[in-house]
């Protein structure tokens, strides 16, 4: 297993390499550049800025310089926030985003999985319908709408929480709920579906027929075996949550890094975009390793060569 894990972790490097090359090429192929403004910069100034940041050089050279710097931990200058480095920007916001992501993930798992189990146990009865309705609401309510609704009700009308910011536990509540809304719905649906898959497996029926008490069948066999699809979903969900949600951070004015991913695309802040993409790629690749390892733990029959 250790060998397998080591090998899989090493595989993250080529994945990151491929993502970086693709992103780099796409990024430079998109029209517009970091200096595009509604009020156009003088041509000479734009040329000067391009020369200053090496953007006038051949792409392979630019990539080479970026890759070497990246390998040494230098994420480069931000083109939009010119007095700051990307390292500063990421260091400032990462833990805020991470904290929010982990809290939302925890909430989503703690609510989503029990909801799904409840639905499966009450299959085609009211608990099932209730869960399904909640899920449909959760998936179709755009996070912007959910966020604003929470703000209007709990901040403007009731005055219980601040409308935004990240200055203490009272500012954490609303964004965590808003961010968890979608994953709760998704996790509940997957849990329900795979629980139902498991119900019809022979060994569960065997256990039932052998007279094993209902509760222990549920806990010992069903849940465990139902976890594979859920765990599959959880990996990328966590990767998404801890690297930040653009909308939630924006709506709640949270100083995380989630906003930067899309802002960087929009403002063509190349080095910031590369950093954000690498971070997300690493999170996805790493958590997929975790997921695969968990598979083997959940279902010991799964063996990796």
């Amino acid at each position, binding site marked *: 297993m250790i060998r397998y894990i080591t090998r899989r972790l090493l595989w993250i490097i080529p994945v990151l390499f491929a993502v970086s090359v693709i992103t780099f090429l796409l990024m430079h192929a998109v029209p517009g550049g970091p200096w595009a403004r509604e009020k156009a910069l003088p041509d000479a100034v734009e040329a000067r800025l391009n020369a*200053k940041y090496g953007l006038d050089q051949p792409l392979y050279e630019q990539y080479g310089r970026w890759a070497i710097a990246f390998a040494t931990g230098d994420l480069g200058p931000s083109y939009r926030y010119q007095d700051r480095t990307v390292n500063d920007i990421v260091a400032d916001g990462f833990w805020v985003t991470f904290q929010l992501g982990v809290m939302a993930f925890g909430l989503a798992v703690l609510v989503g999985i029990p909801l799904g189990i409840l639905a499966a146990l009450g299959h085609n009865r009211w608990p099932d319908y209730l869960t399904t309705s909640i899920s449909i609401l959760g998936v179709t309510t755009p996070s912007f709408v959910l966020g604003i609704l929470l703000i209007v009700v709990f901040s403007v009308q009731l005055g219980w929480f601040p409308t935004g910011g990240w200055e203490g536990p009272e500012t954490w509540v609303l964004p965590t709920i808003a961010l968890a809304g979608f994953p709760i719905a998704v996790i509940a649906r997957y849990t329900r579906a795979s629980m139902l898959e498991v119900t019809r497996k022979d060994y569960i029926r065997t256990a039932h027929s052998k007279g094993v008490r209902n509760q222990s069948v549920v806990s010992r066999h069903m849940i465990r075996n139902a976890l594979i699809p859920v765990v599959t979903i959880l990996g990328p969900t966590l990767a998404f949550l801890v690297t930040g949600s653009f909308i939630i951070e924006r709506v709640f004015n949270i100083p995380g890094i989630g906003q930067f991913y899309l802002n960087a695309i929009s403002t063509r802040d190349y080095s910031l975009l590369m950093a954000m993409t690498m971070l997300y790629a690493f999170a996805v690749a790493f958590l997929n390793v975790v997921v695969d390892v968990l598979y083997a733990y959940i279902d010991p029959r799964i063996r990796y060569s």
Partner: protein
Amino acid sequence: MAQKRLLGLVAVVAIIAAACGGSTATSAPASQEPGTSGPPASAAAPTAKTGDLAEEQILNVDIAGEPPTLDPNKAQDSNSLTVLRALHRPLVYIDPATLEPTPALAESWEISDDAKTLTFTLRDAQYSNGDPIVAGDLVYSWKRLVDPRTAAPYSYVMAEVEGAGDLLALAGADPLPADAEIDALLDTLGVEAPDDKTFIVHLSTPATYFLAAMTLWVGVPIQESWITSPSAFEAGNYVSSGPFQLQTWNHNSEIVLTPNPNWYGDVKPTLTEIHMSMSPEPAQAMAAYEAGEIDMLLPVPSEDIERVKADPVMGAEYTEPPALSITYYNYNNGLDPTGQKTNPRCEDPKACPTANKEFRIALTQAVDKEAFKLATFANTGIVAGTMIMPGLPGATPDYEPYPYDLAAAQEHMATALQELGYASAADIPPLRFGFNTGSGHEPRVAFLAQAWEEAFGLKTDQIGSEFGVFLTQRTAGEYDLARNGWGADYPHANNQIAGLFTCGGGNNDQQYCNPQVDEWMTQAASEADQAAQQTLYEQVNKTIADDAASLFLRWGVNSQLVRPYVGGLQVTPMDSQVPGEHFYESIQMLVRQ
């Protein structure tokens, strides 16, 4: 979750475009003009009695996002300017009522008879760190501004200074000449400090608007030892010359300003702290105002204006002072004498109908601007017939050569079709109508497209693009029609025309060129006589409208909310994110009723 990410993008693309648009200083200014009725807040301003002052003098405002930089030489977007206006003060500043230059760091100045030499006498003044502000710091700051190694976006405002032309052109050189060569050129720049209190500027050509341009944030005094130090722009290191200093800067979160103890101005700040939050989402900023977390809001999201007006409390706190901004739409005039932006399509007149003046007139007369304003701007703003905003010299607020008149429009269209060689407007291939998505432009574009289709049967291809793509294509002249807008940098007619409607100008995306306009602009620049200068700008303004160079639609206003307990506001039409942002020092917190 791949889809979840895409899902997020919906709002995002939208929002971002809006953010970009705004932060390029396009969304401009608001104002208090002579003659126009002012907001109650401003009326309350000078009359606020000390007895009414609240015990706690803390102002909470929102600046819509992290300032990209607090380097005065390099800043260009409204987030940064909103902060910089509290931290620095240039040589001359604007009078909120007349928009004329007024003394600031310079207590007086003289302009030579040939209008080419400006001599400023500085006040006794200190930076926030206690060091004296000397004329040499201005020389340093201005040289830094035009230095190609700085690559400052607003370096062009120095273009008329002696020797600046060579330096500005040098920026485009690749590779850059050796440092020594640049330094030698910088030494020839027409700025000098014969003593600590005297600052002299030599212009290579008379420029009547130069004094107005000096009210910009870019030419403030800068201490070399400060700006070259590491982390110069972080709180604690920041050296300011204005009424406030940078107390804390939690990036992406909050800026706190406190009074600069060494502030030299006559009006000393009453406020003890200004808290600036950075809400990128207008709906959240709106909620923060309603929840009492911020005391002022500018601009109020246009979707919320009706709701705000109908609200018993906020309705009384809402005002719409004028702003120096305009919404207009480009017609592709297809003219470009410089050859830099030639649009190959326009070599065949049939393929480029907007190059035909009669055609442009017809389109203009088919648009009901009042209805446009009502439906797509919540009826805010002033219907525009020309480029220069009311309140500026050269403005002709009532001039509208082509008012809404469908019959006249049909006549012009008939002439145009004959000249272009089309039997009917429906035969013209769909016009390419470009706009950037997500900033609320879609209904405006749909309005215009429908007006033209109903009037003439003319078809358009509405091309919505991501902001960067849109800008690239608009500059390249790929659209027949394109969304556009402008906000004044400094209150002078020159800033509304030069580069925008002069032949081959950097922002002349409508590819308009009328040599007569260029000539008048040059004349106006050296016309010392105010009245004569104004006449020239008026001619320019009317001629551009007569040529139907663009479709001028609406001059902006600053839709703003101010709590009644904020006193002492001096709003200007240049404000963009905080009402009264040019004069934070006069703001006072009054006792809440």
